[in-house]
């Protein structure tokens, strides 16, 4: 089940959201931004939904706040009425995935959360492939340094040694092409 975090100062919205989606997602709700951060830390949250208009800080501000620590969860902004400034801020500062107007359409919202979750996992996969590549590049760099060291001593190498070096080079190429 997808882990969804919903932040809103309106308690009834939280209740309604949980009631609507608890059968589909693993729903976490709170009225407090600090509590939201705690949940983020403890739960593998994939999608974050936040109300824009809140007393202590706005949704965009909240996203800005958590981004350095939790860059991966997909962010969606929920707002009462179209406020063009909030939308601009949401895209430029909060780097949000979707903008949802109240009152929400339940099925649409559900679809969006699913899409967001898929996106989250794609990102995850991409970034893990990237990690593998990074690892391989580190290995290659280490190998190259070894070759350098060997080349430094190459002045008095015999034919046998040269053939071993060639073998190593082929091995390196194979590794790099992978």
């Amino acid at each position, binding site marked *: 089940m997808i882990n969804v975090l919903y932040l809103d100062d309106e308690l009834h919205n939280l209740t309604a959201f949980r*009631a609507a989606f608890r059968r589909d997602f693993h729903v976490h709700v709170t009225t407090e931004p600090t509590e939201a951060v705690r949940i983020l830390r403890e739960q593998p949250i994939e999608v974050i939904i936040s109300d824009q208009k809140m007393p202590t800080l706005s949704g965009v501000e909240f996203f800005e706040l958590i981004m350095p620590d939790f860059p991966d969860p997909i962010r969606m902004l929920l707002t*009462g009425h179209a406020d063009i400034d909030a939308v601009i801020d949401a895209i430029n500062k909060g780097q949000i995935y979707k903008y949802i107007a109240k009152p929400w359409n339940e099925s649409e919202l559900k679809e969006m959360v699913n899409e967001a979750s898929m996106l989250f996992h794609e990102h995850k996969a991409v970034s893990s492939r990237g990690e593998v590549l990074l690892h391989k590049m580190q290995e290659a760099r280490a190998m190259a340094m070894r070759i350098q060291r060997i080349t430094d001593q190459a002045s008095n190498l015999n034919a046998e040694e040269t053939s071993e070096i060639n073998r190593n080079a082929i091995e390196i190429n194979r590794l790099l092409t992978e």
Partner: protein
Amino acid sequence: MKESASVHPCVARCCRTASLLFFLISTFSVHAQKFIGTRLEYLPEGYNLELLEVETVATSDQWVAFDQLVPNLGMGEGVEWMRLTLDPMTENGKLIEIQNAGIDDLTCFMVCDGKIIASYPGGVMNAPSEGHQFGTYPSFPVPLVECNKLHALFRMHSNKPMIIPLRISGPRKVLEDAHQRDVLFALYAGVMLVMLLYNLFLFMSIGDRSYLEYVLFIFAIGGTQLVLNGYAPIFGVDGWPWLNLRLTHLFGVFSGITTIVFVQNFLRLSRYVPWLNKLLNGYFILYLLALGLALIGRLEWSYQLINFCAAAIFFFIPGTIITMRKGYSPAKYFLLAFTVFILAVVVFVLKDTGVIPYNAWTFYALPMGSAIEVVVLSLALASRINQLKRETVNAREEQLRVSQLNEQMVREQNTVLEERVAKRTAALENANSSMKGTLVDLQSAQQQLVQSEKLASIGQLTAGIAHELNNPINFVASSAQSLRRDFEDLNQVIDGFKALDPSDPGFLAAVAELKETFGKLDIDFTQKEIEELLHGIEDGTKRTSEIVKGLRIFSRMDGDNFTTAQINELLESTLIVLRSNLKDQAVVEVNMGEGLPLLSCQPGRLNQVFMNIITNAAQSMEATGLAIEERIVEISSSLAESIGQSWIEVRIKDRGIGMSEAVKSQIFDPFFTTKSVGEGTGLGLSIVMGILSDHNAEVEVETEEGIGTEFIIRFPL
């Protein structure tokens, strides 16, 4: 040269007159005569001449002969005696004539052999009796008697010098000479009279004061000459012995004063020769002194003083030369006139002292000199008048030129001014019409702005209400859907329960299955959730209806009619509308007074007022850096009494940045705003002020920078 043309006729006339005079004098040979002063005898000092009887004098043997042809016996109070020894044979029937008309008192006694046979009065004081005197000079007939010794005794007394030009002549000769003299003096008097009348006429026609002075001068000079030569009776003073005695003195003073006055003015001495002017003023005093002396009877002193003063004439020459040198051209005539007159005086005096012979020229030197003087002075006067006229004309021309110049300048300036006025008028009209256009534009702009401010507040209201309504609608709608699902779960359990049949052998298995479903569906949680959702729906419905109610109150905005309203209700509805806007801006603390009376007001417009002020209050705290819990807007209403008047008082207080005095004084001015461009019209508070003054409300603003602002609004009841 026009001036000199007008002089010419006068010059010609004067010259003709003068030449006629000369001609006449030359033709009269009368004065080629002999005075016989050396035949006269006098009594030397030592006698009391006053008291002497005629007989005593006649028989005296103390007589001493004069050694001058024209003796001078001096003058004074004393009586002088003089004896003339006559030849009874040759000189009887002839006339003894003393050619001096100035002797005051003179009596001639004819003494025949020591016996007085006749006495004749003569001199100024004694009117000449018919037959005894021919002409103006005293003359006495030598009687036709036979005597051994015939003497003429003269008793004389005079306050003027007793100069005795005495001759013995035939009566016919004396008479002729007298006639000739009369003719000459008549001519002289005529000349003087002509000049006098002529100048008098000039004075009357021209009005120049110099002419009058000149007329008086002519009268004085001419009169003096006539009086000196025995023509005093023409002035009709015979019956006035007192005046008759002083006539010479009076004329002397008169001519002296008129001369000085004339000279001073004519030569403009006060301007050209001030020192001489002052000196001549001094002579006035001397002449007045002489006049006084004459009046109190000191005739001899007076005469001497007048003679002394007459020497002032010598100052005229240098004075005139100085004036002439200073460019005053009429002075040259003046110089000529006075030179002639002074020469005449010199000749006259020299004749009297015997330096030059006593003849017609010397005898008539004074009248001739004075006549010439008068004529030349007349020319001088004409020249002076011309000079004045020239100066006046020049001055007038200068004035005219200046005034023409002025006029031209004024005309030019006028033109310039008119042009300027026209330009200015056009510019003003232009400005006026453009201002009218601007005014129209401004008025329409103002209307638009007021309208847009109204629209802005409606927009704010709409946005606020939309947001306020969206939340409850959101969770009510969502809750309803969730409830349906929850009830489906419940129904599933209930259906299962309905399907149970205790008689069914699979009953226990069915119950177990149902229980499993119950647990799987987490019905306990569902029940709890249903509670929560229902609570949310109730709450949402309540809030929605509250909003709608507030909206209803607020929507009276368009109704500008006065109606009664509860001020607290208005404030609350405003707060509902503003709630969502305020949510992330400030905390509102409300302290509504209870039992406030209804207020007659325009509710819609008052909502606009409150909305504006509350929004400002919330916005003023944004920049303070206070936490949201500390950004408090306090709103209170109460009943207040002051100055015998009841008020409803609304206070809206914030803890914002406050205002400076300068800002505070301008907040109600249209278009004044502290917000950045595009954020505020600057009309909000000016509209507030307009609305409040329509309600006769008083507004007080208490503010301090860094502390906050409080609006106190008092509505009169």
